[in-house]
């Protein structure tokens, strides 16, 4: 057969995909069973929707679900517009050196690991010795134990994320801006448009398609909160606002002395189904606007 060699190349990647992606998908059936390791997935008894019902009726459900949604919405609301604003603003810097420096420095935090990012955040916010509290002290304010106050958790999460990613996320918009037709700007200048006017009437309409695509993508990934970061920032004092679905799955499924595999898998499946629904809906919207995501 012609091209058989191409199929032999695919064997290894497909084997990986089957074992580490599709077998776990099959493994989600334990959400409907009482999984006992000794009896295997197939040998464990079916229990239907018990694990789902128990989760929906538990006092944790409302809290965990609400935290997940509000954290995701907060992040989108703050984290989405800022890179666009940064790109628009950078686009009007004419000094090439200044522009390059800003790009270089604002991209850098993107490569800091999540552990180090949380480490930096915690050192900065430490009561007494952290930089933020020292600066607050200079203004005569009392030291605040930020990480211990549940009300601050989401803000710290979102703002540290902005600090890390605002630069890198602006790359895509900067590229889109460089594609805006320069004759439009020339015409606008001829007509006496100020820079602010040009930004509003030339640049923003020019990059709106990209903004729409990125927004739809962000909606599709709405449920994908930086779970590893939340887990690191979590402590017993802020658990009330920091427990999201993913961390809850981890905490009951793998962390406890008696791992509740089935219950955790059920909650994970519940979340993944919502995520799938959001992604498919987002893509359908994207297709309607003429830009499919794949």
């Amino acid at each position, binding site marked *: 057969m012609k*091209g058989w060699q*191409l*199929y032999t*190349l*695919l064997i*290894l*990647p*497909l084997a*990986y*995909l089957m*074992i*580490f992606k*599709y*077998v*776990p998908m*099959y*493994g*989600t059936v*334990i959400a409907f069973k009482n999984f006992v390791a000794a009896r295997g*997935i197939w040998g464990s008894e079916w229990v239907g929707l018990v694990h789902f019902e128990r989760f929906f009726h538990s006092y944790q459900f409302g809290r965990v679900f609400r935290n997940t949604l509000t954290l995701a919405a907060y992040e989108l609301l703050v984290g989405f517009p800022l890179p666009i604003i940064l790109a628009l603003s950078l686009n*009007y*810097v004419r000094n090439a050196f*200044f522009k390059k*420096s*800003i790009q*270089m*420095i604002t*991209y850098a935090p993107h*490569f800091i*690991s*999540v*552990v180090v990012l949380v*480490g930096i955040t915690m*050192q900065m916010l430490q009561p*007494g*010795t952290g*930089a933020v509290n*020292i*600066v607050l*002290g200079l203004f005569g304010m009392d030291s605040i134990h930020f990480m211990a106050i549940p009300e601050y958790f989401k803000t710290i999460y979102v703002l540290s994320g902005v*600090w890390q990613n605002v630069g*890198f996320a602006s*790359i895509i918009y900067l*590229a889109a801006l460089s594609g805006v037709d320069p004759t439009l700007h020339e015409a606008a200048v001829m007509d006496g448009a*100020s820079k*602010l006017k040009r930004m509003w009437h030339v640049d923003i309409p020019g990059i709106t398609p990209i903004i729409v695509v990125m927004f739809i993508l962000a909606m599709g990934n709405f449920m994908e909160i930086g779970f*590893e970061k939340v887990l*690191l920032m979590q402590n017993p004092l802020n658990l009330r606002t920091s427990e999201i679905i993913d961390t809850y*799955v981890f905490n009951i499924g*793998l962390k406890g002395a008696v791992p509740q*595999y089935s219950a*955790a*898998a059920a909650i*994970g499946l519940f979340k*993944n189904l919502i*995520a*799938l629904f959001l992604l*498919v809906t987002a893509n359908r919207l994207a297709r309607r606007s003429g830009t*499919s995501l*794949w």
Partner: protein
Amino acid sequence: MSKNAIRESKGDRVFDAANHLLLGLLLIIIIYPLLYIVSASISSSEAVIAGEVWLWPVQPTLDGYMAVFANKMIWSGFMNSFYYAGVGTLINVIVTLLAAYPLSRTDLFGRGFFMLLFVFTMMFSGGLIPTYLVVKALGLLDTRWALIIPTALSVWNMIIARTYFQTTISSELLEAGQMDGCNDYRFLWSIVLPLSGPIIAVIALFYAVGHWNQYFHAMIYLRDESLFPLQLVLRDILIQNEVDFSAMSDAGELVRRQGIRELLKYSLIVVSTLPIMVVYPFVQKYFVKGMMIGSLKG
């Protein structure tokens, strides 16, 4: 041309000033934490504990760095991380190219079906627990392979490589190769790979940074401390605060140790981030390129 046509209007000059001011402010906000960490790491522990360091180093010492390099866990963490990043990235790149090249060929029968198999895993996953059970069933728990094999391929990077192949390897090139009796293996090895330096660099960098920064898989899959990557060691020290000096009886000694512990954290942040930050300026353009290719439609 009149003078006024060249000179900017007052509004534009105000705009420029405000724009530069805001960007300058952003620069300060981004740099300040980094500068503060570096300053604290070379200050004396007394100054750090007393909260005297807020911008520049106070009573400079290298105590913190001594403590970092005296710690065996940190050393082994570094070594392990180099191993995971090196071996892991090599396997990642191989598996990625093996998938990306055939899928870039428009004459591959069933291409759409295979693509769907790959892309579907981006949309839906079995989730944490079932994946953990698979890794466990394969006997990978508590071995180095647990950090390498379960993440052997990122579909996202595969799509980036595939897009690159589609746009740079022309069908004329393939036809010319086939005309000269080149089979698919030979074509991939002798023609495609030599033309793909930039894309291999991009995906290798993405994978390597991913391995270097990963802690979660190590946390769930590994028990043996001698296998811990740096990030997991960092987590224990920076976040779980697990440098245990609590058995100290002497109060003065306790305070001193407490100070070293704080200092150690700052130095550790610097030491662990340094490898990436040193390489970063040279490879920045590849990351930007990767972002751009990734945003193209496949």
